[in-house]
């Protein structure tokens, strides 16, 4: 019962002293907003990339010439199939078509389930085609030939970073547009049912064909993460800026237990508030400020990233050529909880410790 009155009283004091908490709230919201936006974007991109890699087979084989990835012919296909533990080998068509009007490369992916004169396109591609009035079909030009391909359907509106920018075509048509001959593929996919044998088989292939690039699914995930974290430098700077802001906030919080707040504590102590009561009041007030700021900032970040597609921040993450993608809404609860602990707890301590120090002082001295 007493707690109910104490909570009400703490809230009353808080509401009457809004202005001194507004600055703290603003900085706190900014810090949590930046952190959670970056976390939302990175979780979303990582999720999409991992999903894409997870659909791949166990081992990918690329050919290379002079350090560049190049087409691979099917001559080694049977050879690889003979290796114990390999259940199947697939030739994949995957490459880039140069769209001269836009001076931009379009990502073509072969799919044997698609009819010859049809294609499925991503959100970003659709917008690009619309810009040149290709509403129903698109003409690809390759080796002097024109390939009129109908737009069969679009990926659903919430295209992710992978599906947003690709064109799915029939394997044969994709081969022809990309200038590959019948026995050539962009890369090979090797299916190994037993996961424990993947590394061994990858090594065996590598030993047999030292000039090929062999990548297991695990390596692909690791490469993806490395590629993704090259942006880490930029974010380290951002994190440092945000951390500095946070420490400024903490310093402000500590110094904001100013003379009149000290006097307020002494007044409350003079009519019987215990040290615990004072800490409870300060905890309630600042927990409310921090908690609601945190929730507000996380919601703001969610809207910023998943509704408005993170303008400005998106460029840093995925480049200016991927402006039409939508981030898949992925929320990593563990990270949000960690963020909560690393922001709210120091924030609370920064006010409770100086308040406690004031509360334990001689009341008649503090009240002067």
């Amino acid at each position, binding site marked *: 019962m007493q707690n109910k009155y104490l909570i009400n009283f703490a809230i009353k004091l808080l509401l009457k002293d809004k202005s001194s908490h507004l600055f703290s709230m603003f900085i706190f919201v900014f810090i949590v907003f930046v952190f959670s936006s970056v976390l939302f974007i990175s979780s979303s991109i990582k999720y999409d990339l991992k999903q894409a890699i997870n659909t791949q087979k166990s081992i990918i084989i690329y050919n290379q010439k002079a350090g560049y990835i190049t087409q691979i012919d099917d001559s080694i296909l049977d050879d690889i199939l003979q290796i114990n533990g390999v259940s199947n080998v697939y030739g994949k068509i995957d490459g880039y078509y140069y769209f001269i009007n836009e001076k931009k490369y379009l990502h073509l992916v072969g799919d044997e389930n698609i009819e010859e004169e049809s294609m499925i396109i991503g959100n970003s591609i659709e917008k690009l085609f619309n810009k040149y009035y290709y509403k129903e079909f698109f003409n690809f030009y390759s080796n002097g030939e024109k390939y009129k391909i109908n737009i069969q359907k679009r990926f659903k509106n919430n295209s992710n970073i992978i599906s947003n920018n690709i064109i799915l075509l029939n394997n044969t048509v994709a081969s022809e547009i990309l200038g590959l001959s019948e026995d050539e593929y962009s890369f090979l996919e090797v299916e190994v049912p037993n996961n424990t044998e993947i590394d061994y088989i990858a090594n065996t292939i590598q030993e047999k064909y030292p000039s090929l690039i062999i990548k297991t699914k695990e390596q692909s995930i690791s490469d993806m993460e490395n590629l993704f974290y090259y942006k880490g430098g930029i974010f380290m700077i951002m994190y440092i800026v945000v951390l500095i802001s946070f420490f400024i906030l903490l310093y402000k919080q500590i110094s904001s237990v100013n003379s009149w707040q000290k*006097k307020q504590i002494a007044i409350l102590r003079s009519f019987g508030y215990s040290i615990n009561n004072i800490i409870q009041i300060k905890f309630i007030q600042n927990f409310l400020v921090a908690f609601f700021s945190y929730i507000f900032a996380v919601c703001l970040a969610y809207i910023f990233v998943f509704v408005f597609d993170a303008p400005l921040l998106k460029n840093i993450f995925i480049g200016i050529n991927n402006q039409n993608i939508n981030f898949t809404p992925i929320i990593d609860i563990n990270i949000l909880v960690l963020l909560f602990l690393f922001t709210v707890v120091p924030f609370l301590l920064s006010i409770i410790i100086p308040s406690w120090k004031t509360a334990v002082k001689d009341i008649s001295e503090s009240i002067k």
Partner: protein
Amino acid sequence: MIKIKNLNKTYDNFQALKDINLHIKKGEIVVLKGVSGSGKSTLLSLIASMSKPSSGSVEVNNILVSKLPDVHSCKYRNENIGYIFQSFNLLEQLSVADNIFAPLVISEAKNKQELLEIAMKKANIYHKKDEIVSNLSGGEKQRCAIARAIVLNPNIIIADEPTASLDKQNSLKFIEVLKEFKKEKRTVIISTHDSIFDNLDLVSRYINIQDGQIVD
């Protein structure tokens, strides 16, 4: 009721109180007189258990309040002491009612709303209950401070220079409040150097304090 024995209080190297011995009976109105810095406020804060003595003891209703741990001294202050400060020490941003309710927040009293209303009516500040304290006049602030001091019906009222921030008219009104306290048989200890308290019939005793010592 209040027994003070060999009480000393030293701040750093300054001895604010020297060997104070004093007995105050229930219902007495005692006026501590002395110049600023003589130790009156220090003595009041020790009686209210807001400070701990350097040596000696303060006993109130057979409880050694000078030795109470913080939780118990808080309960003692909340239940037994009504403190009226010179500068009122109100929470300026809150309303009159919220200020007077503040001691009730941590109290175990059941009829809090009723106590609040009684105190406001007694102090004649009920009509201003929703007014923000910073908008009040000096006299109104003092009535608010009085209401806060009496809201839990304490048996001891301590008033530290209660008329120092008031004009003569409001100071005289405070004397009327003292008469009420007398009727209610509350023990009242006032520290003042205001001559308005001189030769008042309702005052049981005048105690002169000089350089931290009681003088005749």
